[in-house]
């Protein structure tokens, strides 16, 4: 819904006379105010809506409640008059009990506010279309191979070219491959993220530049030295200077002409993209070197469906083409097919389960809050019974009493909603600040019209829900049965008591569900932390260097051996090493190649693959990756010496059936040919992609034999030394100021980042579960307190007839336990039924984890007993004489 329509909707709540006279002018003033410059930023838009909400509420209340002089003609009863009267009565009764009202508004504000926050995130991230024209027609394409259990491999260049030529399912296909480059100018060297894109990249996404132009087809096919900047990069590096177009920029040793700047919203493939550069497969992989590869699967491929093609139809078309390719090129493509996923689904895939779980959790908290408030309302209805009875006796229509209850509920709920909206602007900022790293589409989140409508709807629904319960009981109350009990200590209305009990049971059940969820996440997180990564992450300092291409061959290995020697000479550094790809760090070359045992090449195309890592001699020592057998690399493993490799346990298991491979040879198939390597050692496996991932087959090669330019550098220190990062920067700068280094961080920080999402979900759900438990406890407490005040007489009688105080206490505690038991069982049932939906978030714990269920089965009754203890003690302290003497 757009803002103006929402405002028109809000106008309907004004009195008719006012609305009819001023609607057009109001909308005009609204629109013009919205266009004022101060409301144009994201926070400005928030402020605008907050101001509009305040303006609307205060004027609506004033217009409806302030009585104005009327002419005799206007004095006839209008359609809205009873409503105005009800609202006025409700306002009066809210004012009469300020403490109660504030408490109710507070509980609701928490419930509604948390829902508003999560809804605004869920709406922006999961529900709104991506910010591209006709985004629902965009799909991501993956290569799949069921036999190898590969379901999401980025397609290979040759396959993409064939698809483009042979299927009509797509209006356009784009390929993008993200690498990094070194930008050098007067201010120094910086490593930036470069997206290399195919000719159709911008046209498929239908993205227009904010400045200048995008690439022409000739430029892409001619491999022209041109770049388009991202908005972020343009602002960061050029201060948003519009004269940047046609300037040149020195990137990885070559000059590029800037032809355009993209709009702020455009950030494919990632939000971090700094610039886009043309990529043409034929130029990149010239025919004399074998042409574009088929079995090198690494591209990010997105297509726009052609008119008339649905996703299933396009997919079957694509699969047919893929099987044709597999027949024509069985060596590289046997068993490989393709699959299509909507781009939107792909973008939010990782965030989806967490967000939906949070949405469910805040929904539960809101339900509990509503149950709690309903329960409070019922208590108050009971307390007001004498007045109610008098009103009925004096001829007040029941419908009016009911309407008044409802009006009071709705008014309080709206106030709660408004307060919740205020809280949510703050909560949203908090959530985004703490959301680990990469919430997709975070820039698109805002409290807009849709979110306001949601909050309004939720508030109204809440108000009706808890206004209705007392409204019904106000109507249901019979004059005859009520009058005698008015003002006396007669037994409370059984039915109402039963309703309240049910509400408490519901609260307990919902709290149990949240506690089970939080318990499962806690156990799963504990398991995750207890998982050994395969190396010792303590006291490791990490950075990355991207050497520029003039350091080729031995220059590169010389550079790194000098750098490492200098690092090891720093005080506190015990050893240092470099590696192409470091666990948990997204930098450097991480690639897989087919491999086999020498003399035992399996038939067919589906060769197992091994991850290749180039390391310097002291890598294993520095990382403390244990060597099972054989030796580490040393300075003699140079280009002139024979080729050697160290493999991990997974390779030993897959290729050597568990026997020690030291001294045997493996063959690794590179693009240009297959080479044998003598295995000189076996290393323990490492959880390379995070604690949740299983170790993969890895082969380590000496960097001196296979020199790579970009390397991750790790240094082991005796203890944490805060001056070390600066020292490392100084050393690299001294060696060659033109080589940029990435951020200097620690291995422990990388490890903690890799579990950030789990920690975040755990903290939030844990907090919500605690709130839920607290609310449920309050519910039990208020129910029992009220109940016992009604039963003082009975307790006095029991004590007078010889019951001892302990047995009275037991009676009350038993009642609480019963409520807890019923609620707890219900809750466990619901938790088990819903458990499957969070199973994907759990690690090493089944959703029916007995320990968690048992823990919750202890914690929740314990909380119930705690809540019941005070009322029970009070009941047992009743002075029987005084209680019995009371009228």
């Amino acid at each position, binding site marked *: 819904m757009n803002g103006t329509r929402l405002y028109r909707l809000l106008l309907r709540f*004004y009195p008719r006379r*006012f609305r009819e*006279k*001023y609607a*057009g*002018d*109001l*909308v*005009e*003033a*609204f629109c*013009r*105010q919205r266009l004022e410059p101060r409301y144009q930023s994201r926070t400005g838009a928030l402020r605008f809506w907050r*101001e*509009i909400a*305040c*303006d*609307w509420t*205060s*004027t*609506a209340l*004033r*217009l409806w409640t302030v009585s*104005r*002089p009327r*002419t005799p003609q206007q004095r006839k009863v209008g359609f809205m008059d009873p409503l105005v009267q009800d609202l006025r009565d409700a306002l009066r009764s809210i004012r009469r009990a300020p403490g109660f009202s504030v408490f109710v508004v507070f509980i609701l504000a928490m419930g509604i506010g948390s829902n508003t926050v999560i809804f605004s995130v869920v709406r922006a991230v999961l529900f709104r279309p991506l910010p591209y024209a006709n985004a629902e027609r965009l799909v991501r394409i993956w290569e799949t191979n069921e036999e190898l259990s590969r379901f999401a491999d980025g397609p290979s260049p040759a396959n993409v070219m064939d698809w483009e030529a042979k299927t009509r399912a797509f209006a356009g296909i784009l390929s993008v491959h993200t690498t990094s480059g070194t930008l050098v100018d007067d201010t120094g060297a910086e490593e930036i993220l470069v997206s290399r894109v195919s000719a159709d990249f911008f046209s498929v996404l239908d993205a227009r530049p904010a400045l200048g132009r995008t690439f022409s087809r000739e430029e892409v096919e001619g491999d022209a030295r041109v770049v388009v900047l991202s908005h972020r990069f343009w602002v960061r590096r050029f201060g948003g200077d519009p004269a940047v177009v046609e300037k040149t920029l020195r990137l990885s040793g070559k000059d590029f002409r800037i032809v355009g700047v993209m709009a702020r919203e455009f950030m494919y493939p990632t939000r971090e993209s700094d610039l886009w550069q043309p990529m043409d497969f034929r130029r990149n992989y010239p025919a004399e070197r074998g042409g574009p590869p088929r079995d090198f699967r690494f591209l990010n491929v997105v297509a726009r469906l052609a008119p008339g093609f649905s996703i299933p139809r396009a997919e079957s078309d694509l699969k047919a083409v893929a099987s044709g390719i597999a027949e024509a090129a069985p060596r590289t493509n046997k068993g490989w097919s393709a699959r299509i996923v909507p781009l939107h689904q792909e973008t939010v895939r990782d965030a989806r389960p967490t967000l939906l779980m949070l949405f469910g959790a805040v929904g539960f908290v809101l339900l509990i809050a509503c149950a709690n408030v309903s329960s409070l309302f019922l208590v108050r209805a009971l307390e007001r019974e004498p007045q109610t009875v008098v009103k009925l006796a004096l001829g007040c229509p029941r419908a009016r009493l009911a309407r008044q209850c409802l009006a009071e509920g709705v008014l309080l709920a709206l106030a709660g909603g408004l307060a919740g909206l205020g809280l949510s602007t703050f909560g949203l900022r908090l959530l985004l600040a703490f959301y680990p790293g990469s919430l997709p589409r975070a820039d698109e989140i805002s409290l807009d019209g849709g979110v306001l409508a949601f909050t309004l709807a939720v508030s109204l629904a809440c108000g009706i829900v808890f206004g209705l319960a007392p409204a019904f009981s106000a109507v249901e109350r019979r004059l005859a049965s009520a009058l005698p009990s008015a003002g006396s200590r007669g037994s409370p209305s059984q039915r109402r008591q039963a309703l309240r009990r049910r509400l408490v049971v519901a609260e307990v059940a919902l709290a149990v569900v949240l506690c089970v969820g939080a318990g499962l996440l806690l156990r799963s997180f504990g398991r995750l932390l207890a998982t050994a990564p395969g190396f010792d992450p303590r006291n490791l300092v990490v950075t990355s260097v991207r050497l520029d291409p003039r350091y080729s061959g031995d220059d590169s290995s010389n550079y790194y051996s000098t750098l490492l020697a200098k690092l090891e000479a720093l005080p506190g550094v015990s050893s240092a090493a470099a590696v192409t790809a470091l666990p948990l760090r997204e930098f450097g070359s991480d690639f897989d190649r087919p491999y086999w045992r020498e003399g035992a090449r399996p038939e067919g195309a589906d060769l197992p693959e091994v991850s290749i890592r180039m390391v310097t001699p002291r890598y294993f020592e520095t990382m403390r990756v244990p060597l099972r057998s054989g030796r580490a690399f040393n300075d003699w493993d140079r280009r002139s010496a024979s080729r050697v490799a160290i493999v991990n346990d997974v390779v030993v298991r897959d290729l050597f059936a568990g026997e020690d491979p030291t001294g045997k040879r493996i063959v690794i198939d590179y693009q240009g040919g297959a080479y044998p390597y003598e295995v000189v050692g076996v290393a323990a496996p490492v959880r390379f992609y995070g604690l949740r991932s299983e170790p993969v087959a890895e082969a380590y090669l000496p960097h001196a034999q296979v020199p790579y330019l970009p390397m991750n550098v790790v240094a082991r220190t005796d203890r944490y030394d805060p001056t070390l990062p600066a020292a490392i920067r100084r050393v690299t700068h001294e060696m060659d100021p033109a080589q940029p280094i990435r951020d200097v961080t620690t291995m422990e920080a990388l490890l903690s980042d890799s579990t950030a999402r789990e920690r975040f979900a755990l903290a939030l759900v844990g907090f919500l579960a605690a709130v839920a438990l607290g609310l449920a406890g309050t519910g039990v407490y208020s129910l029992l307190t009220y109940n016992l005040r009604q039963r003082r007489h009975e307790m006095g009688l029991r004590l007078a007839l010889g019951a001892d105080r302990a047995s009275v206490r037991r009676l009350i505690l038993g009642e609480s336990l019963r409520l807890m038991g019923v609620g707890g069982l219900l809750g466990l049932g619901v938790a088990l039924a819903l458990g499957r939906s969070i199973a994907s978030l759990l690690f090493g714990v089944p959703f029916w984890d007995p320990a968690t269920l048992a823990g919750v089965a202890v914690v929740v009754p314990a909380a119930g007993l705690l809540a019941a203890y005070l009322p029970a003690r009070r009941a047992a302290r009743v002075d029987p004489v005084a209680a019995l003497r009371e009228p």
Partner: protein
Amino acid sequence: MLKRPDPEPVRPLRPTAFHVLLALAGGERHGYAIKQEVERLTEGAVAMGPGTLYETLQKLEEEELIREMREKPEGEPDHVQRKYYRLTARGRRLLESEARRLGRIADYARAKIEEAT
């Protein structure tokens, strides 16, 4: 509309009402222009949302302090449906008396402050 016998205000004007009257002292304006003028006069200290603006205008009109104009001012295209307001004689008197009252208060405040320093 009930006639009030006394044209002088019995109580001080609400700040928004006062500023709206003040904004109209310079000549007729339409709703949003009034709001802009008020914000300019008060350097943004008095900011009115659309609801507050037209609620105030309605009230002032009911109290016959302002009046909606029958004809559009010159230069305004015909198709634009805007309400233009101007001060009534009563409104101008009230504005003057309110300004005098505020002036007296300001004089008094200045004297007090000087005394204190």
